[in-house]
């Protein structure tokens, strides 16, 4: 029984924190943007605008839900959830701290130590795109349709490289469990052993989360919002939240695979973990503030002609080195 309680508490705390962080990332993004663009950003609601995400949430909740006349109503409602749930669930296998002792019990600071954790993450991140495609299709409108098509094409092009870019780490650590991967980085973070893999993952991660310069499914200036053009109110907020949850989850994965997860000197593990996530999030925002958007065909060409061969080469090179030096 106590195990069940511990798991429930962990789920509530971790997911609560994830959603809260995701919400506050919207605030951070606007502040970072403002910083880059010589503006103030939200600074009126609460101290330094810290209550802005909550105000936004309340506002969105009270907005009218508008459904296009010829939309598929069930899918239209359901699609945002299909995007949000995998984004949240993928976080379950990411360790956010070391083993701690609470009331004489050893507790691992991760929700589930799945021995194929990385496959689990890929499976779920692959799911997320269904929400986007279904939502776009269910809208029965042309701009969302184009956004949905772009999204599915983008996913196919980048999922492969995403998986292959992490394969190097898996080969070195010899485990698919995220806990095992963090354990393997006690001496040296894998970023030093897999620099190419890290860069590849970084690029694919941006494409996977539909962020600038790969934000083609949204592409506001082209598709007026892309797949979520017809969405309003909480349905829209769900998509929005899912995007940020995805960003946080992928930042966490990147930190776990390449930067040693929660490991770090002096500060407590959870703080280190958060700092690493924040660093990746800042990178996301910085990129969006400074780069133009690629064109659809260029994005495809980049995925298939540059990223995929590079990631395959990286895997081969890693394998050759491991075999040659018998690591």
């Amino acid at each position, binding site marked *: 029984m106590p195990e069940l309680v511990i798991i429930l508490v962990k789920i509530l705390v971790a997911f609560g924190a994830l959603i809260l962080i995701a919400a506050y990332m919207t605030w951070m993004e606007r502040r970072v943007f403002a910083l880059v663009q010589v503006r103030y950003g939200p600074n009126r609601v609460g101290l330094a605008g810290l209550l802005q995400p909550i105000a936004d949430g309340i506002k969105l909740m009270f907005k009218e839900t508008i459904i296009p006349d010829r939309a598929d109503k069930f899918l239209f409602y359901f699609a945002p959830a299909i995007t949000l749930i995998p984004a949240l669930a993928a976080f379950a296998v990411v360790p956010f701290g070391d083993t701690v002792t609470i009331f004489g019990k050893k507790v691992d600071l991760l929700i589930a130590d799945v021995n194929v954790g990385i496959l689990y993450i890929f499976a779920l991140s692959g799911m997320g795109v269904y929400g986007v495609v279904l939502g776009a299709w269910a809208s029965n409108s042309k701009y969302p349709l184009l956004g949905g098509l772009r999204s599915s094409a983008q996913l196919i092009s980048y999922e492969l490289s995403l998986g292959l870019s992490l394969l190097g780490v898996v080969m070195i650590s010899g485990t698919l469990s995220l806990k095992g991967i963090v354990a393997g980085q006690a001496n040296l973070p894998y970023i030093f052993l897999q620099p190419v893999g890290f860069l590849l993952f970084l690029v694919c991660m941006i494409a996977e989360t539909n962020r600038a310069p790969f934000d083609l499914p949204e592409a506001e200036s082209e598709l007026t919002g892309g797949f979520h053009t017809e969405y309003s109110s909480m349905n829209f907020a769900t998509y929005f939240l899912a995007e940020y949850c995805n960003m946080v989850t992928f930042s966490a994965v990147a930190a776990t695979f390449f930067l040693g997860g929660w490991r770090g000197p002096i500060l407590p593990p959870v703080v280190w973990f958060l700092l690493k996530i924040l660093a990746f999030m800042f990178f996301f925002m910085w990129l969006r503030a400074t780069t133009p958007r690629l*064109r659809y065909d260029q994005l495809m060409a980049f995925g298939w002609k540059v990223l995929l061969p590079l990631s395959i080469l990286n895997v081969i090179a890693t394998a050759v080195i491991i075999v040659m030096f018998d690591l």
Partner: protein
Amino acid sequence: MSTEGTNTAAREPDILGPIRTETMTLNMGPQHPSTHGVLRVLLELEGESVVGCKPEIGYLHTGIEKNMEVKTYNKALPMTDRMDYLAPMSNNLGYVLAVEKLLDMEVPRRCKYLRVLLAEMTRIQSHLVWLGTHALDLGAMTVFLYCFREREAIIKIFEKVSGVRMMTSYFRVGGVAREPYAEFYDDCRRFLDAFPEKMDDYEELLTDNPIFLRRTESVCAISAEKAIALGVTGPLLRASGVDYDIRKKEPYSGYEEFDFEVPLGSAGDVYDRYCVRIAEMRQAHRIAMQALDGMPEGPLQADNPKVVPPPKEQLAHDMEALIHHFKIFTEGYHVPAGEVYQVIESPRGELGYYIISDGSPSPYKVKVRAPSFSNLFALPEMVKGGMFGDVVAALGSVDIVLGEIDR
């Protein structure tokens, strides 16, 4: 065989068997973030490829040309601001030059210099809006805010000199509305001194950015012959390599006294248009600096009391001045019968005013040759065979102002 749709795409029927693909008609606008106003572009898409493009205009028709016929020449002037609202001073300039030509009137040299200074500041201002929105269309948000910060500085100067931020109506027939305020030249100089450095900042964000290059280089190119055939003018024409700048070819308002170059492109693609406009901003800065440095002394208004209103302080004790004032602001001034076509190089291209006078105080007919109008209809030619994302890039590079197109 299934029945064929009306717009069946030209694909190999053998490969697809009984399956037929159809193109999709997409309404881009009139409410769309990248149409720069209320423009509607009817796109025929095959997937993401553009097979047809048809700009639909008229959503902003205000009847400006017709309206000018029922107003006196002075009262018609504020209408011109409202056409190309991003370059008000250039519009004013074209109109007052046309009327001055009809009146056979020469303005003092100082007035010419002041007009050139303000017209070039307008060019910088207008190109800044273009640069910002064009970059925004391509997804680079930050440039937009930087550009609007600099534009704001110019707009502030305009506001102080004319009283209005955008609808300046500052140039008048026979001179300008009033003497510029005391610190006007200092304000201009302060802005112009700081400007080149800001330009470097924008260029740093875009000019060598690999993504920006991919989005613009050899995208939506238009050849010199095509551009001339379509009546394209301004930076678009020069980007295609045609050396045609009215400031050089038919100098007006004393442009022959200024030393500047006409930047030219070669490929006529979106990137060349970008480069030409960026270089034009630097040239505009150069001209403005020359105007500022060489600002002559002397009167500002033409010596023609029938057209130029007398100074306010004369009205109290000068009967003659009072009569002129009364006549100008009630009946207006009579313009000799005849017709005139005056062109200027507005930021968007060849802006022409064709005015017919029947000798009355109101123009008989005003026809404006708006550069955006001709330039916009080069769009179908540009985007043919391109991708959907290119339409946005091309539209941004044309730099349209719908107020001017619909008039």
